[in-house]
Each structure stands twice: as C-alpha cells, then as structure tokens.
C-alpha cells in the first residue's frame, strides 16, 4: 500500500451510500436495481464505478447525486442526508455542491461555451470568480472557443466544456456518467486525463460511472457492481487488471443462467453490453 493510498483511506467521505436499495416496478415486473449497496467515495479521490449493463451503476450514481431517490437506505453528501431534502433543496444542492458530466447532451444549444460553463452560477444568481473561471478555461483548453455555440464544437470539445462547467462552481463532488461513451478514443482519452489531472492538482472528488476498463484505469480506485450489489474494489487500476477482474467476476457469478434473486446475469462482454461499439479497444489505448 502506497503512502497516497494510506492518506486516501483516512480522509472523510465526500459521498456515502449506506444500504442503498432501489426497486423499480412492482410485482412481476419488479426490478431491484440496487440491492443493499454501501460504499464511501472519499474526498479528493477519482473513483470509477464499473459493472456490466444492468448492474445498477447508473442508478447508484443518480441516487448519490440527488437525481433519483432510494427506496431504502441512505445517500449522504458530506453530512447531508439527501432523503431529508425536498425537490427545491435537492435542486439547490445539485446546483451548489455537485457537478455533472453526462454521456451526451451536456450543453444548452442556445448558450455560448462561456455561458454554459457559468450556467449553475447564473441560475444561483451570482457571478463566477474571474480568476477561477480563467484557470478552468485554460485547463480544458477552450480559451479560443468561449463565444462559440455547442453546435460549432466537436464531441470532445463539448465534453470538455461539460467538465469545465462541472468544476466551475467549486463543487464537493463531480459525477460523470459515461463521459466518454460517445467519443472516439483520442477525445475520450483527453477528457479522462482532464478529469484525473483536475483531481490530482486541485484535490477534487470525482465519481465516474463507466463500463470501459480503459476509462476506469484513469481512476484512483474502481468499485465493481453486479446485479445491484457491490462485488469488489480495486485500487491503482490498469485497464488489463480491470478487464481481467471483470472476466473473472463474470465466470464467478454468471454461467449464463440466473443469479440467486432471479436477475438475468449479464454474460456479455461489458464493452458491448450497452450496445456501444467497441471504439475503445483495451489493447489499443491502454498504457
């Protein structure tokens, strides 16, 4: 265990999920998307949430980020129990304390790049600190694109704008949901490095949902979900190790049959399970 790892173990959690259960539907159509997940996302760490399609990783993120509510259990941001907040407070919490990077459609087409970056502050009615804004814009390398509209940017540039927006408000945590899912490998790489660099240089907390081992390799730690349960964690991941773990995990839990609680186990290759073509081949871009 490295010293960095020791430090990370002792710091408090930015986000905690305790005994999280999320059930969709009722009766025959009931689906347990989360089945008792407890996990901490420590401050200043870049955590990747891995798992095959249907493993509950997106649901976990949505519930931890206040976009969705848990059926039981608790999601906490710092000391705030999200279940105690009404829609308005929850919205203000997302605005002031959380940053988001979605897979696609991250930006408002009517706003310029600069306006998109400062959107949460504008909604809050205050202006962004000029120095901070400049630092972020330079970090994402979009200085010359500030007055462009999103439609004039490439996919990678759009995701970088989204990253800039996510960090611009100085949030407690940034949630990224498949941020590279729609990008080619090189653009994806850029966005992932940007996330990693920001965490390391500024001590931000990032939680990223992905099904891509290469993307996960950029994180400090990877947690694995399957069938709504936390099944493993891995520190200092590499793409190969993550891929191996995924494969091992599949053979361990799924034989093409059903798991204990009746969920169809996902036996496909995780990279193509969501229907995304394997643009990011593990061998191609892994270090």
């Amino acid at each position: 265990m490295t010293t960095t790892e020791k430090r990370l173990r002792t710091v408090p959690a930015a986000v905690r999920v305790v005994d999280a259960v999320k059930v969709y539907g009722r009766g025959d159509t009931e689906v347990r998307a989360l089945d008792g997940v407890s996990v901490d996302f420590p401050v200043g760490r870049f955590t990747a949430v891995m798992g095959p399609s249907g493993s509950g990783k997106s649901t976990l993120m949505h519930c931890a980020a206040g976009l969705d509510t848990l059926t039981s259990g608790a999601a906490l941001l710092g000391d705030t129990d999200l279940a105690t907040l009404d829609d308005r407070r929850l919205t203000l919490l997302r605005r002031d304390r959380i940053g988001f990077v979605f897979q696609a459609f991250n930006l408002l087409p009517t706003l310029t790049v600069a306006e998109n970056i400062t959107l949460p502050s504008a909604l809050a009615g205050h202006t962004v600190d000029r120095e901070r804004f400049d630092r972020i814009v330079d970090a994402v390398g979009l200085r010359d694109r500030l007055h462009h509209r999103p439609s004039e940017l490439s996919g990678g540039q759009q995701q970088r704008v989204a990253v800039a927006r996510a960090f611009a408000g100085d949030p407690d945590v940034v949630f990224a949901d498949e941020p590279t899912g729609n990008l080619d490998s090189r653009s994806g790489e850029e966005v992932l490095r940007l996330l990693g660099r920001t965490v390391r240089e500024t001590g931000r907390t990032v939680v990223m949902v992905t099904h891509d081992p290469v993307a996960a390799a950029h994180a400090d730690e990877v947690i694995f979900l399957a069938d709504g349960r936390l099944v493993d964690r891995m520190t200092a991941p590499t793409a190969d190790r993550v891929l191996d773990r995924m494969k091992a995990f599949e053979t361990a839990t799924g034989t093409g049959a059903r798991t204990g609680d009746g969920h169809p186990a996902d036996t496909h290759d995780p990279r193509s399970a969501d229907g995304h073509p394997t643009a990011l081949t593990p061998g191609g871009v892994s270090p």
Partner: protein
Amino acid sequence: MRTPSAPASLRLARSSLGAHRRRFLGTFVAVLLGVAFLTGTLVMGDTLRASFDSMFTGASRGTDAVVRSAVTVIAPGDAQGTRGPVDADLAERLARVPGVAAAAPRIEGAGQLLAADGTPVGGKGPPTLAGNWIDDPALNPYRLAEGRAPSAPGEAVVNRGAAKAAGLALGDTTVLRTPDPVRVTVVGLATFGGADGMGQVTWAGLTRADAERYLTAHPGEATSIAVRAGPGVSQEELVAALAPALPDDVEAITGQRAAEENTEMVSGRFLSLFTTFLLVFSGVAVLVSAFSIHNTFAVLVAQRTRENALLRAIGAARRQVVVGTLAEALTVGLLASLAGLLAGIGVAAGLQALFPAIGFPFPEGDLVVTGTSLVLPLAVGLAVCAGSALLPAVRAGRTAPLAALRETQVDASGTSRARVVTGGVLLAVAVGTVLAGVLGTPSLWLAATGAALAVAAFVVLGPVAASVAVRVLGRPLRGANRGLARRNALRSPGRTAATATALMIGVAVVTLFTVFGASLKATMDRTVDRSFAGDVAISGATFGAGGAGLSPRLAPAVGALPEVDTAVGLGRGVAEVDGEGRALTVTDPAALSRTLDLGEVRGSLTGLGTDGLAVAADEAASAGLAPGRTTELTFTDGTRHTFTVRAVYERSDLAGDYLVTREAWAPHRTQDSDTLVAVSFADGVGTEEGRTAVTEVAERYGQPEVQTREEYAESSAGGIDMMLTLVYALLALAVLIALLGITNTLTLSVHERTRELGLLRAVGQTRAQLRAMVRWESVLVAAFGTLGGLVLGGFLGWVLVRASEGSGDSAFAFAVPGVQLATVALVGLFAGAVAALRPARRAARLEILRAIATE
C-alpha cells in the same frame, strides 16, 4: 392489385393522431370555437328573422290594406325616410267603399315613458313609440293582455315589455314624453304578435283624441289608415276597390305587403346589419385560428422530420407523406367542426333562453337550423384546417430521406433574404397605396386595399421582425432564466412570429376599433368645443331611433329666465331641396348664432321669414347656392315652396346644412320636437347658478338632462363606448384562440426540449425557475404579438380615420387613446403569462431522469 398509397397514408395519419392526441387539442379547440361562433351567428340570425317574420304576419293578420301618403322624403342617413300624413277623416269615407268592412285611422309618433322612478325607459337604440288605441282588434297589432282599452283623456295602454322595464303596473300614473310631458294612467297592458312587445320597442296607446292632440302637428291628421276587407274580398281586390276613393298623393297597399315592409325594415336592415357584424367577428376568429393551426402543423412537421425521412427512406412516396399530413389535419378539422356545429347550435339555443331572462324579448319560436348554417361552418372549418396545414404538409413531403440519418433538426426557419425582400416590397406598396388613398384623391377602396396589403406585409415580415423585436423587448430582462427565455424565443423566429401573428391580428382589430372610437370621440369633442358657444346644453341624450326629443316650449321657457341670455331650440325637419332629400334644422337662426359658433356668415341670419333659408358653405358650394339665389323645397305633405337663400354660414357641425325658421316649417311639420336646446347665460351668471335655474325649468318638461359643454360632448359620444364594449366582447374570443395558439406552441416546444429541460434541472434549475423561464418566453412572444398588433391596428385606425374624413364632409380628428392602448398592451402581456401556465406546469413536472434519458 390495389394501390396501397391512400390507405397507407391514412393509416399513418390515424396512428399519428392517436399518438399525439394532446398536441392536437389546441387545434381542435381553435377550430371548434371559430365554427361554433359562425354556426351560432347563422342560426341566431335565421331564428330571429323567422321569429320577426311570424310576429309581424301574426300582428297584422286582420289588416287587409293600408292607406298612406305616397310622399316620402329620404334625407341622407335616414334610411326609412319620412312619410307625409293622411287625413284622418278619410277613414270614414273609406269605410263606406264597397268591399270594406272597417277602416280606422292609425296615428303613430314618438312617446317615451318615464319609469316609476322618473328615469326614461328605452331610448338607447330601439324606437320608443306612442299611438292611438284602435278598438277593432283585427286592425290593431296590439292585443290587450290585461286591463282595458283607454277611454278617457290621460289613459294609456302600454306594451307589457315596456311596463316591466318601467316597473309600471295597472293603475300606475306616469309621464309620457311626446315630447311635452303628458300624465298618463296605465289602464291596460298589451302584447304584440304573441310577444311582450315588438323586440325592445316600447309602445303606449292613447285615445284617438289624445293621440291627435299630442302626436300630430295638426288635428285631423293620421299616419295611415288600416282597412279590413268584407267577407270574400281578397287583399288585392280591396286595394283595387280603394284606389278610386283615394285623394292625390295617397296610396293603398295590401296588408301582406305592409307586413313584408315591416319585416324588411327589421330583418333587412337591423338583422342583416347585426348578423353581418357578428360574421365579421367570426371571420376574425377563424382567421386567428388559421394561424394557430398552421403553426401547430409547422411545428409538428419539423419535429417529425426524422420520422418522415424514415418513411421516405423505406419507400414512401412524397405524395403519401403529404396526403398523410393533410389527412391528419382534415380529421382534426372534421371532428372539431362537428363539435363546433353542436356548440354553435347550443349557444344559439342558450341565447334564445337567456335573452328573455335579461329583458330582451326574444320572439318565441323554434330554433331555425337551415342547411346553410350547417354546411357553411363545416366547410369553413375543413377549409381552414386543410388550408392551414397545406404548406407544412408540402414541406413534410419534401423531407429528404437522408434527414433520417442526421440529428433531429429544430425548426429554425424564418429570416431568408427572399422573405425580407418580399415583405419589404409588400410593405412599401401597402404604404404607398394607403397614402395615395388617404392623402391624394380620397378613396376608401384604395385605402382598404392598402390596409389589406399592410396586414399581408406584417405576416410576411413577422419572422424577420420577431428576432429583432424579441432581442429589443428582451433586453431589459435580467437573470439566467429570463435570458434563457429570450434565447428560446429567438431560437426559431418563424415559429415565434407565427405564434405571435394570431395574437397580433386579434390585438390589431382591438386597437383599430379603440383608435377609431377615440377618434370619433375626439371629433365630437372638437366639434362641441369649436361650435358650441353656449354655457349649457339640454339634449334628448338619445342613441339610435329612441327617445322623443325635447318639448318645443322648453326653449322659450328657459329663455325667459333672468339668468339666461339666449336659449334656442334646434328641431329637425326634412324636405327635398331641388329634388334631393335633405335634413333641415328648424330654429331661430338669428338667436342660434349667439349660442353656436357658425363661423363666418355671408348675408344675414335675421328675418329669414317663411320663405328664407340659410345654407352651410360646403353644401352651398356643392348645390350651387349663394345668397340671393332661390331654390324649391318639397315637403312631406306634398307642397312645394320657393325659398330664397338669405345667408351662407361656415360651420355645419352642430347646426346642420340648412336652417329654416319655425314659421316656415310650421305648416309642414310632423310631431313637434327639438333635439337640442343651446343656452347661454346672461353676463355675470356662474355655471352652477345658471344650471340650477335651467334644471328647475327643465323638470317641468319631462326632466331632460342639462349638461355643461364637457358633459354634452361626452354624452354625444356615449353610443361609441357602448359599441366598443360590444366589439371588445366579441374580440375576446379571437384573443382567446390566439392564446390557445401560444399555449399549444409552447407545449410543443417544451416537448421538443425535454432533454434540455432535464439538463437544466440536473445542474440546478429549480421548478420555480423553470416555470419562470417558460412563462417569460410566452410573455416575450405575447409582447411581440401585442406590439405588432398595436402598430398594425394603430396604422389601420389612422387609415380608417383619414379615409372616413375623405368620404364625409366633417373634419375628422385622429386620436390615440394612450390609457386604453396601454391597457391593451398590459392585457396582452398578462395573457401571455396566463397562456404559459399549463406548458410551464407540465415542463416543471418533468422527471429529470426521464428527460435525460429521452432519445
């Protein structure tokens, strides 16, 4: 093998309608309202016409012939004309003609009842009449319902409707203004043709002696003679039998023709005016709905680009896509029109039930639903739907199959160069035409053509104007949500313009009427200001044909007051001047010049005598008259007299075109009354002091209102406000349809922006903020529509005022009523906020996760 094209298109249309039912709600309601309005108008018009028809026929069933003077003088603006009297004694002679069973003189005149509380009854449109009670029930259109016929002086029968309105019961005593106040006791209540009265006309029946005394100028005169035929004598035979017994200038017509003339007078003039008026407003409503419908389909087609492209890609013919879209429009149109038909008939039935309840005696009878009132609205509803959807359908057909592969295109149509050029040219031509029609040789047609072109130019330029206007109007909006609202409104100028156009047309018509009404008022104001040199005016304060005028003895009585310097009455007479019907002002011309400002007078107004007259300068110029010239006047009694022009005066606003003395008019007069008494006080008499004295005298003459100059000017314009209120009520429907259009477009836009809204909510926009954002977008669109409507309506109002000035002889003032227009603007903005309520609520209810996940 059958051609699958049509069925396939129809199946597509049906499935699309099923899937997007809510999106067609706005279209459905817009068509429904327009069609219902149209149907209601037609059905009500037909029903009223049929009711009046049967009422008149029933009322005059026993009258087989009417004998009356053949001389009518029709002065401009007096559609019916004034007919001369006949000798009442003629009735007795006619009664002896073989084939005649009975003949009775009929005396008709103006007589306004005072209610139990002393206020005048009616006089705000429908006539207020009085006459003699005819004992022969076959010849009397009125039937006694309660009480008895008048038999002694001061006894009267009153129609039941008037008695109700006046709060009078059998045995009550009140005053009948003829215009001299006559004390009458109500001894009977009468019905007319089975109803409580002839529409809202009030009628008082007196003894023949009273009627002759109060309603005719000369004893022994009658308005006409009603004749009943003996057994086996037809109406035509009766008329033929009467002819030899008639003196010169007296004619006999069949009872049936008399009834037809009466019906024609009411349904031909009043009813067709009424229905035309309503049809114009249903036209406005339909026009507004056409824009709303067009917009809905334009948005739907834009949203469906991928769907249509996919259809094209898998082999749908262009025609199939067009037919499918049109079929959708026609289905909505058909359903909505059918619902509208039912609603319209329901509204007409409701009004028929409601009118009697609010005191308007709607004649009894079944609702008349003709084929026209069913087919026409249905055809209009379908045509409007298909016509409005045609362009979007063609556009849908043009969708390239490749569009299926591209990202969803948000409709961003609007500001092409061709549009700017076309609109600009159209506007230039419109303004040119209007200016030519207004400033050059005045021509109402040229002005109207220009006005129509201006409306077209506004519609074409709408999208161009929309982006500019929203930018400017949205500039003061601060804060993130309002900024987002502004940008959303700017997103598709074509859509914003089309949405706003519906409201623009509604507001433009409102503005047009407001400006025209204010200009009319200003004109009257100016007229009184310029021409009324007196201190107070006593006027019959009437509107339309009602009222009985003022007693001709009022002016001398007021003039005798020590506080009063001059009091001069103005009465109305008619005569043909050189063969042309003209209104005469019967007055004391010399005294008149002291209370009215007649401007420059050539010649002398004193000593006109019985063969002199004074002419207004404009009329003198067009009739070729000058001081010293003579002209021949023909009166309604058939006599001709040569008059000498003694003076020509400049201002005719209040005085009228011809002035004659009372002495000159006396031999030819009909019922004697003044329409205005102008009073100027003696030196040193204050307004209040003088007014109190004059009011005291006026009380003895039926309590006419004594008004200061300002009050007089205001009351002259009283009818305008009433008219405007009615117009506003009718236009409310058009504005409502326009607002539905805004709601509908917003709902579609919100649907289209689901993902954006989800993103906004995710990154911290609260529900309240989101609602505000949608609301502000709506307000901006409404502001643009309202502003455009104000400008367009103001321009059209100016054109109308100028064009009216061109065709009339009096100077017309153009006025812009600031307060009213500001109110219109505020109502427009408020309405925009209201229109956004539902879409905003729906947008705010959006679940974030679903919005983000939406494809």
